[in-house]
């Protein structure tokens, strides 16, 4: 660790000397070879720039434009710090690998609450600085030691209004009922949402869903296995519905508006018993921009106007209670925290998923394949 900083310093000093002519080119190259740095990387002077920008790590696609416009641009204007997005997707394994190899390239990751709890426990995350980030700007109970909710997303299903126009399905029990509602189904491939949906379909009351009875849920899921497809990405879920391959499909809520538009309203979203997933902004230990800057950024994302902006662009529901009332009327249907939906949804329990997620995913994969 010490060596790295020392070498970096030596390299920078060498670059400055080279630029000003004190160090001959040959000597500079030898210096770089000794340190092990590529000459051009150092001479370009980029070594210091990394600390002056915030890198948000998310899943790409529309999220890039939406997060840049809603969060990044206003933040850069306010503070003068740069803003960049890394779209490779902050999965737990990647964060763990990054922190352990001491090569952290992102400052804040747009991940799940259960990531915040699991990775926080294993020591891979920076604790959130609640003197800068405001706990009151988050829905009660969704500010954890190592992560804070900026948005909610969720799982719900969309159904074919043409096929089921007489008695539209309203509950997960209807989703899992292939006798009265014939046709194919689609579920998320990696267990989130599907487990809770299956339990509710099997008659478990909303407040009894956690801790999840995995075997009971998997039995239910296996019962419609023949008619099910499983998707691993939002675009695959969208494609299955738009191509008419399923008559009821589980989706991420932020896709629902787009799918309704793409199918000319034929497929409609059902928010009853939707599973609301708290997102969490988490900071990998040793992030390049430093603790102070990244906490400033996260605090700036709590601004209600910016969260509403993001919701309008991307479909991710705000987590700041002050923003709930600001949700535009025509979009209230799609927001998991709007007043009409807040009582109907099931709030995901990140503690249970942090503990049992790995086992749940493996058992689920075993059941569906």
């Amino acid at each position: 660790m010490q060596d790295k900083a020392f070498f970096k310093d030596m390299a920078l000093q060498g670059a400055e000397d080279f630029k000003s002519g004190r160090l001959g080119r040959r000597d500079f190259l030898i210096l770089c070879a000794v340190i092990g740095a590529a000459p051009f990387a150092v001479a370009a002077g980029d070594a210091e720039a990394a600390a002056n920008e915030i890198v948000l790590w998310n899943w790409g696609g529309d999220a890039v434009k939406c997060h840049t416009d809603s969060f990044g641009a206003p933040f850069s204007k306010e503070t003068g710090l740069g803003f960049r997005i890394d779209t490779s997707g902050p999965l737990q394994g990647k964060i763990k690998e990054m922190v352990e190899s001491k090569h952290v390239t992102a400052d804040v990751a747009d991940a799940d609450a259960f990531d915040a709890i699991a990775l926080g426990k294993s020591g891979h995350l920076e604790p959130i600085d609640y003197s800068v980030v405001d706990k009151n700007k988050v829905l009660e109970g969704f500010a954890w030691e190592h992560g804070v909710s900026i948005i909610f997303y969720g799982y719900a299903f969309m159904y074919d209004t043409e096929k089921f126009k007489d008695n539209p399905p309203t509950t997960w029990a209807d989703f899992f009922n292939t006798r009265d509602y014939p046709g194919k189904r689609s579920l998320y491939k990696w267990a989130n949402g599907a487990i809770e949906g299956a339990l509710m379909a099997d008659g478990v009351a909303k407040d009894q869903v956690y801790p999840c009875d995995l075997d009971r849920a998997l039995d239910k899921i296996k019962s419609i296995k023949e008619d099910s497809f499983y998707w691993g990405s939002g675009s695959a879920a969208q494609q299955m519905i738009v191509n008419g391959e399923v008559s009821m499909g589980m989706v991420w809520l932020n896709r629902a508006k787009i799918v309704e538009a793409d199918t000319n309203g034929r497929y409609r979203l059902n928010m009853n018993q939707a599973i609301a997933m708290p997102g969490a902004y988490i900071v990998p230990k040793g992030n390049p921009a430093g603790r102070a800057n990244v906490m400033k950024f996260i605090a700036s994302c709590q601004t209600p106007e910016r969260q509403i902006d993001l919701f309008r662009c991307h479909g991710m529901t705000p987590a700041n209670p002050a923003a709930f009332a600001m949700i535009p009327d025509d979009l209230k249907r799609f927001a998991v925290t709007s007043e009409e939906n807040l009582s109907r949804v099931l709030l995901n329990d990140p503690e249970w998923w942090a503990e049992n997620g790995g086992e749940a995913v493996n058992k689920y994969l075993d059941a569906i394949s």
Partner: protein
Amino acid sequence: MRLPGTDRRLDAYWLLVAPLLVLVAVFFAWPVLNILLISVTEPAPGLGNYEKLITSASLGRILRTTLRICLLTTVMSVAVGYLIAYTMVHLGGRERAWMLALMLLSFWVSVLVRAFSWLTLLGRNGLINAMLTGSGLVDEPVAFVRNETGVLIGMVHYMIPYAVLPLLANMQGIDQRIMDASRSLGAGPLHGFLRIYLPLSAPGLVAASLLVFIISLGFYVTPALLGGGRVLMVAEYISVQVLVTVQWGVASMLATLVLASVFGLLFVLSRVMSISELFGARA
């Protein structure tokens, strides 16, 4: 017992090769070994992860699925590839060039583009099903994709160029006059093919099968997309263990298994034929 002086010539050649060996060892072998060691160090030192191979029914199922699909893919790809290569070898220059060009063109299409194209073509409301249901041939759309059939279609389509190229290389080395000679000695076309051409093309067959099988073992994207989530193969499972469930020990153990199987396969084959000839180096 070797006298010290007799190996002198061999020493010089080893010195020439040594820098390359060191490069491979340091930048390739050592990092790969590091990863494979995780299988015996996480979550606790020991062979616990390998025990899971015997105790876990799901792991067994995934491995059997992978094996089954890879074998089927290999058989089908090599069969079709053989036909294509045979045709190409017996055609004249221009037709052969065209066939080669078309095949290479499809070779260069990305695997992701192919997968989504297959979904569009063969999906429930895709082109093929629209034709079939529209013309009245079938009542319900046929399930071509989002199941094992779709996976096999996608994989065979991807593997055919890999099968054709070694076969082509081998067949081009077979002297056409041998077939003429066999005819003049009284062998009918079928007899000549079975007794002479096929055995001569055997090295090509083995090389093609080996190549296709080994590549199929690592296939991730095609089964994930075309299988509808229902065809879980070992590569995708390893990826899930590394990224989502963070069970690096199991992931590394499976990776070691796949790597060991490939080496084992090569070893068994080396007993039967000359591996260096298989990969192009003449003895």
